[in-house]
């Protein structure tokens, strides 16, 4: 079972690595936000698998924290990114 | 190769990368970012030392781990202060450069 879960963990890490290409390439801010969102979710999945592999039950607590804080960072990312788009549209400098 | 060695090498490269970014990138915000990268490399180094010191039934030596937790919080406080300074500089001069001879639009309200 450990081997299978490790393999699944490796697979999800590989998916994350490929998803990173979107952050690199863009082209738009929206694509970067999506990639960041995918990395957040995939990171949580990887963390849960890692906890199961190494038998550390505290991994679930870390995953809970990560779920809350990754959401917070994602909201900040999207909100600032959107504000930035607005700023380009209307030539306003308000960084909400 | 052990877990500690793999992540030890990783820590060394991350620290080097952070140092390079800190020196070469002209934007202060990117310098702050690079400094955090450098810091994360140093913290990981502590983590490696903690991992190698696993004994007495603990997964790692708790003392370096506690030092890293303290370090991360202090790094956060320093980053917050650096960003506030940077934003104030931008507000006061209209640019965010660290060059000494940079032209300033006004000298209003600089603390």
């Amino acid at each position, binding site marked *: 079972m450990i081997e299978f*879960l490790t393999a*699944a963990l490796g697979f999800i890490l590989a998916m994350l690595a490929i998803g990173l290409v979107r952050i690199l390439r863009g082209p738009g801010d929206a*694509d970067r936000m999506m990639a960041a969102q995918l990395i957040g979710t995939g990171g*949580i999945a990887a963390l*849960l*698998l890692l906890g199961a592999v190494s038998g550390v039950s505290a991994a679930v607590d870390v995953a809970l924290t990560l779920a809350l804080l*990754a959401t917070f960072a*994602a909201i900040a990312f999207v909100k600032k990114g959107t504000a930035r*788009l607005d700023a380009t549209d209307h030539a306003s400098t308000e960084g909400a | 190769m052990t877990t500690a060695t793999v992540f030890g090498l990783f820590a060394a490269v991350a620290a080097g990368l952070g140092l390079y970014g800190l020196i070469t990138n002209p934007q202060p915000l990117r310098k702050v970012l690079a400094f955090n990268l450098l810091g994360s490399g140093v913290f990981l180094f502590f983590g490696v030392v903690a991992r190698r010191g696993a004994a007495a039934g603990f997964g790692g030596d708790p003392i370096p781990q506690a030092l890293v937790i303290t370090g991360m919080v202090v790094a956060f406080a320093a980053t917050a202060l650096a960003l506030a300074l940077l934003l104030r500089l931008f507000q006061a001069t209209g640019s965010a450069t660290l060059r000494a001879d940079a032209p300033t639009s006004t000298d209003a309200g600089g603390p």
Partner: protein
Amino acid sequence: MKLVLDIMTVVAVSAGAFFFLAGTVGLLRFPDALTRLHALTKADNLGLGLVVLGLLPQAGSLRDGFKLVCVWLLVLIAGATVSQLIAYAARRDGPVP
């Protein structure tokens, strides 16, 4: 019983990994932002959900299992909201299809 639980883990985690694959491929290959978002939300909701479902039989205690489900619910709520906000940004960003 142990075998049944293990089989459930293998099936569910594999299915979850598949949805992560689908989401990633969609993110890379789909032509515009909104279709990419469509692919992404599958990875978010189903991918993580199935991984959590697969890990439930391996959870050490009832409390750990409960927390696992909580993680999934949190990500579900947050993912739905963030996706809406991203869609708004995408509409501004690119040409409307």
